[in-house]
Every structure is written in structure tokens, then in C-alpha cells.
């Protein structure tokens, strides 16, 4: 099913006889496999409003991300939260949509500075599981009128409603960027450097460490962006603060961050991939504990060490029990982003929640999707 309008979409959801598998471009195959009739939002396209001087864009949820980025680039603007492109990592094909970006709350390395996808989503229109059209938020940057269902929709993977339109905040492309790179640091020293950089006043917009074996030798990267003189100044100050880092500029710098954003070092390599979010200072403790317990892994550390991408052997529970037991002590959560469907069918892909929180989530699902037909079980 591929509706061409919001009314048609609402009618299809209202009249659905059974479970629906909601897709945008179908490039983010994450979660428990969903059995259901495919409902694509790819027909809901088009820029409804773009005001560069107000930093706002309103667009149909099925609009291809590439189209959105092209429209913004013409005005020297961009999606500042740097959405991850899952295609290489997950081995999927197709054109990612802007709705999919928000349904997955797909943020990238710049999250550490400017915020996540959800922080840039100003308003939504969606169809709930009963087929009702609901709007929330709007197109202005400050809005506390009623509850913030915009945040609730972001990262709900189509399980609470089908996005039909999104309005978002965009930002200007900076004139210059620079990445300071050091090679051969152990994870602990690499993360310490990232922490120092993020604790400095130099407005760091990317802070990643690739452990040895992720993409050759270990590599630590710190990014700054802005007006040219400002970037030069901060590059020099950070260089003095961090010792042993060398600058990479322009397109070469941008390429380093596409690699981190899309986790390309794990693309095409066998194994399951976990995405772990935890306190930056505890990332190294987690990977050391996993190593001691015998779980072989490679780690790419983004967000100053607070976001771990772990490559482990697929099969069995892909290390789920061990990983989540350690996280129970350290705090944070783990999502099994890539694994064989058989693994994902038995391992909870999303972190199981404590009973009272799980009850709230279940209650919200029951209200927004009373028949349980929107991507049922995907986030289970």
C-alpha cells in the first residue's frame, strides 16, 4: 500500500484488517522482524514550506532524505544532527526518507554538540492506530503548548503512529571544518582526550575513537566547525591542549565523519552490531568487562565515548545477556541494530525496561494503537 495523500493514508490505517509494516524508504531494518502488510509513506512527498531565514522546513514524511538535503544545500543549510545512513551497515537498499530519520531518531556524531534528531523536530502530523489524524507541535522553535508528542513520536519506529508530515529546524552549513587526528592511542587515552576536548570552550562538534582493528590502527578524532578564522584559532588551541594530534581539513575531514556516522568500518563485515548508549566515562569499563568475560568485540566510540558501536559474533544471543547484565551495573542501554532475523527473533532488540516503565510504554501503545496494528512487536 502506498497512499499519495494524508487522507488516503488515514483511510488505509482505519480500514486495515491486520498488522501493518510501516516503511519509509525501507533502509532501516531495525527491531524485531514485523509480519504485516507493507504500508509505505513514500508517496507523501514534497516541501510544504521552507523559510531559510527562520531555519524551518515543513516537508511530507515520505520525502527522500537526499531531496531534503539538496533543497537545504541550495541555501547553504543542512540537517545539523547529521542523520546516520543505515544502508551500508545493514546492507539495505532504497532511498531513506525524512520520516524514517525521525521515526528512528537517527542522529550522528554532531549529537554531542547540537542535539539529537528529536531535538530538531518541531512538529508532526501523524495517523494513529485508529486512523485519526493528529497534529502536535508546530513550525516554531519554542512551543510548550500542551504535551510534547513530537518527542514521543521521534524514535518510536512507527509503533505509535504513521508520520505524514514533519516540520524541523535546520541550521547553516559552516564555512570551515577541521578534524584533529591522533593515531595509536589505547581506548582509555583516546577517550580521555575526547573528554578534555569536550570539556574545553572550543565548541567541539565531533569526538570519536576507533579502537585498534576497527579501521586499521586506533584513531582518535576531534572536530570543530565554524567561521574560518575561528576554526583556525580553536584548532590551534585544541592542538596545544591535546598533544600529538594533527589537523585534517575540508573534504578529508568531512569524510572521516561520514565514516563514523555510518559506522562503515562494520559494513560488510560478518557479525552482529550493538549500539550502546552510556555515560562516556564508563564505556571503556564496559568493553574491558566484556573482554574479560570472553565476548570478543571491536568498538567504535562516538559521542566522546558515550555511544559504542560493538561488532560481535552473531548467533546465540549475540552477547545480549552479558552486555545487559553489565549495563545494569553501569547504566545505559543497548540496541541490537544488526543481526540475523533468527537472532532478532529471540533477543530483545531494544533494552528491556523496568516493569513500571514498561507498563507506561505499553499503556501508551494501547492508547495510540488500540488494535496493535502499527509495526507490532518491533520494539519488543
Amino acid at each position, binding site marked *: 500500500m502506498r497512499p499519495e495523500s494524508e487522507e488516503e493514508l488515514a483511510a488505509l490505517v482505519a480500514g486495515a484488517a491486520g498488522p501493518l509494516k510501516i516503511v519509509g524508504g525501507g533502509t532501516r531494518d531495525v527491531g524485531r522482524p514485523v509480519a504485516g502488510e507493507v504500508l509505505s509513506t513514500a508517496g507523501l512527498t514534497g516541501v510544504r514550506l521552507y523559510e531559510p*531565514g527562520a*531555519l524551518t522546513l515543513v516537508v511530507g514524511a515520505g520525502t527522500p532524505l537526499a531531496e531534503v538535503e539538496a533543497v537545504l544545500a541550495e541555501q547553504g543549510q543542512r540537517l545539523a544532527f547529521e542523520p546516520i545512513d543505515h544502508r551500508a551497515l545493514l546492507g539495505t537498499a532504497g532511498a531513506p526518507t525524512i520520516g524514517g530519520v525521525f521515526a528512528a531518531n537517527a542522529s550522528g556524531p554532531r549529537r554531542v554538540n547540537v542535539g539529537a534528531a528529536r531535538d530538531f523536530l518541531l512538529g508532526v502530523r501523524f495517523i494513529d492506530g485508529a486512523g485519526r489524524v493528529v*497534529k502536535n507541535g508546530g513550525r516554531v522553535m*519554542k512551543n510548550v503548548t500542551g504535551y510534547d508528542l513530537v518527542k514521543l513520536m521521534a524514535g518510536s519506529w512507527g509503533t505509535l503512529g504513521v508520520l505524514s508530515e514533519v516540520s524541523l529546524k535546520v541550521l*547553516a552549513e559552516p564555512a570551515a571544518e577541521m578534524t584533529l587526528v591522533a593515531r595509536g592511542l589505547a581506548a582509555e587515552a583516546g577517550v580521555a582526550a575526547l573528554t578534555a576536548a569536550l570539556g574545553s570552550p572550543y565548541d567541539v562538534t565531533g569526538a570519536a575513537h576507533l579502537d585498534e582493528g576497527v579501521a586499521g590502527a586506533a584513531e582518535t578524532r576531534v572536530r570543530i566547525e565554524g567561521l574560518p578564522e575561528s576554526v583556525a584559532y580553536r584548532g590551534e588551541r585544541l592542538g596545544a591542549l591535546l598533544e600529538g594530534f594533527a589537523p585534517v581539513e575540508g573534504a578529508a575531514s568531512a569524510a572521516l565523519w561520514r565514516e563514523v556516522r555510518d559506522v562503515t568500518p562494520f559494513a560488510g563485515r560478518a557479525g552482529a552490531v550493538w549500539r550502546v548508549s552510556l555515560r562516556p566515562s564508563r564505556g571503556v569499563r564496559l568493553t574491558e568487562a566484556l573482554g574479560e568475560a570472553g565476548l570478543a568485540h571491536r568498538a567504535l566510540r562516538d559521542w566522546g565515548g558515550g555511544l559504542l558501536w560493538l561488532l560481535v559474533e552473531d548467533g546465540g544471543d549475540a552477547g545480549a545477556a552479558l552486555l545487559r547484565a553489565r549495563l545494569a551495573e553501569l547504566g545505559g542501554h543497548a540496541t541490537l541494530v544488526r543481526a540475523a532475523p533468527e537472532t532478532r527473533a529471540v533477543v530483545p532488540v531494544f533494552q528491556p525496561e523496568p516493569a513500571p516503565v514498561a507498563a507506561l*510504554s505499553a499503556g501508551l501503545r494501547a492508547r495510540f494503537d488500540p488494535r496493535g496494528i502499527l509495526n507490532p512487536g518491533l520494539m519488543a
Partner: protein
Amino acid sequence: MEMPTPSAAVLAKKARVVERLQAVLPASGVIHDPAETRAYECDALTAYRCPPLCAVLPASTEEVAAVLRVCHEEGVPVVPRGSGTSLAGGALPTADSVILGVARLNRVLETAYGDRFIRVQTGRTNLSVTGAVEEDGFFYAPDPSSQLACAIAGNIAMNSGGAHCLKYGVTTNNLLGVTMVLMDGTVIELGGGHLDAGGLDLLGVICGSEGQLGVVTEATLRILPKPEGARPVLMGFDSNEVAGACVSDIIKAGVLPVAIEFMDRPCIRACEAFAGAGYPDCEALLIVEVEGAPGEIDEQLALILEIARRHDPVELREAADADEAARIWLGRKSAFGAMGQINDYMCLDGTIPVSRLPEVLGGIRALSGRYGLEVANVFHAGDGNMHPLILFDANRPGDLEKAEEMGADILRLCVEVGGCLTGEHGVGVEKRDLMAVQYGPDDLEAQMAVKDVFDPAWLLNAAKVFPLDASARRRAA
């Protein structure tokens, strides 16, 4: 302002409720003498007052849970209260409600510079959060103008903003985790020291829920390294249109100032008379502030001034030193005090798309003429967050009602041009009955469904946010 009729059954069992609350709190934590409960009869929206049944001041998450369990069992409504600085009546009691004040929850629980967060109890004031980390070079970004007094609990309930959110975002963008007590006494943890909470974004929906979903007792807040410096520049223009176009061009140019403040002529004149900051007598005035090291500031200001000059400013004033910078801010910072000197005023905070600024200012001027009430405008222009101040005389019969009617018309205008009713103050009781202007029945139903899940009996702050007729069935159940 219509409020629900207090429950006779609850009023009748005051003694028993007080006794049960006294059993779970220290003696000083339960306030029930009518002479003392009067202190809680209103917040900063002082036009509406009602003493509560009683007030409680728990000092720990456990005490909050114990209080809520009692109230839940007794079916007694609860109104959470931070510091009582709400301009929207968010903490206005009903006669049958228990005010739950978080003033005694004021400790810093953990400061983690390596993880760039601070964990505090939510009765702590906004400014004292920054106070706890600034010696080490960090700050907490959201800065509502009441930051000296307002509590983090209220900031979370209202998703408070401030002058610097163009760059740093509002509360929800800086909140990493909470400990929250549900109406039945259940304690839950959401998020924590990591950057994204897992599962559904419950944290996102709690922030800005106006104390209707639970009582947040502890919060993990993102802290940021302090920039090396900041410097404002002042620009005067002879029309609102030109000033609005200048704001838009600055934003489009790719420099992101930390603040862009706008004042119109009535506001400029009042501030000048009050504070003598040396502002030019012109139609519209902008204060634009940028951050960084001195060289970085020069680079940004050069760009901004070049743009400003293209708009034929009647005045462009740079700050050569800290004194001059302070003078540029002086008038703006005393705006509300200046207004208070000459009149009673009502402050709205509708937000509009920046591109519609001249049109909305024109519309407000027309309304001002029609109602015969002066309006001064001072606001955060970068993000379209208006602050029209309607001046009236509270002692003149009918003036308050007239100001309220005019305020409602201004907010309708904000929604009409694509904006919203409230950008940072919240709905409370003040804008409750206007919700239908912005949202249709299904939109409100979806929001109320969230409350059904968190607070099925609708005991928490239930007379706020949603029009009373829309929530009637749920509140009665």
C-alpha cells in the same frame, strides 16, 4: 476564570487527610492552618487565588512517594509546585487540593564533569545549578528570566526557555534523566547520564507536561563548558519591518548568535525613562550577542554589522569593554521592571515564525487601538518568541478582563500566522481555554490519552492545560 467545583467529600475529610500526611512527614512538612496555607494560594499569575486544602513539603523522593500514595488512596487532587514563579497559573491550587512543594529538595547529588552532567534534586533553583559548576568552567544553559528564583522542577514541568536558547535549546534539549514519582507512589527512573534515553521517549513527553504526569524529584542536567567570552551589539531601526528583515538575514547568513533581543518603541521609551541606558529613540531596537574568544567575536560581529548596515540602521553601537556591554543590556534587562513602574501589565509569550514579525506587530498595534490599551513588545526575536506586555490598571473595574480579552486576540493572531499560544511559559489556567484555537479535538484527545496512562484518576493538576469541557468526563470518572 472557571475552575472545577471542589469535591465536597474531600473538603469534608480534611482532618483525616492532614492526619495521614502528618504520619508520613515530619511535623513541619505539613501546613494546614488556613492562615499559613494562604502563602500557597497563587503563583506569579496573581490575578487568580485559592488557598489549598493543605500544603506539604517533602524532603526526599521517598517522602514524595509516601505523600502521593496517601493522596491516591484518599482520592485527593495534588498540585505540584516548584518556586511558584509560573506566569500561567501552573501552580494555582483548587480548594480541595494538596499543594506538593519541592522547596526542601534542594541538594546537588552528583557533579560529573567528565560526563558533562549534574544531578540535582529539583527544588534547587535554576541559577544555583550554574552556581554549583561555574567555578569549574561549566554552566547550565536554559536561563528563564526568573532564574534566580525558579526551581528546576518547574523548569521541567514547563519546559522553560530563556534568552539564550537560540543556540543552546530549551529545558528538554538539556535534560538527560529524571527520577519521577507517579500519582500512585511508584518511583521510576528515565534516562540518566547517557545522551539518549532508550525505548519510547517518555522523558521527552514528561518535559513540559505541567506537573500532570508525575512529580519529578531528581534531574540529570547537561552542563556545558563556558565560552571564553561574549559581546553584544546594539542596532536601532526606524521600522519593525526592517528590524525583522535584519534578524532574518543574520540567521540566514550562518552566524548563530546566542541571543537576538527585540524591543519596540513603547518598550524602548519606558526602559529609557526607567534605566537611562542611553538607547536611541527609534521604532525598533535589536541587541545581538555572540560568544567566543575576542578574535572569534570580532569575526562574527564583522559579519553581523555588515548585514545590519545594509538595512540602514539609525544606530549601531558596539561595546568596547565590559561596561559598555553592560549598558547595552541594562535597558533590556530592566524592561519588566520599567513596565511595572508605570502600570500593571500582562505578559504573553506566543511564538510566531520570524518571517511574520512585522505583520504580527502591526496586528498587535491595531488591537491596541481597538481595546484602548497600550502594548509594549520585548522579545527573543531569533526564535520568534514574542513577549507583548499589555498595560492596564488593575484598580479600574473591567480593565483586567479587557486585557485578558485582548491577550486572547493576540494569541489567536499568533496561531493564525503559523505560531503557537505559548513558547515558554506554559498553558496552565491562563491559556487553557484557548487550546482549541491551536488544536482540534483529536489532537487534544491524543494528549489527554497520555495523561490517562500516567495518572488514570486525573488527580494531578487536572484543571490545567486542557479546556475544562474537554477534560470533564475524565476528571469526573
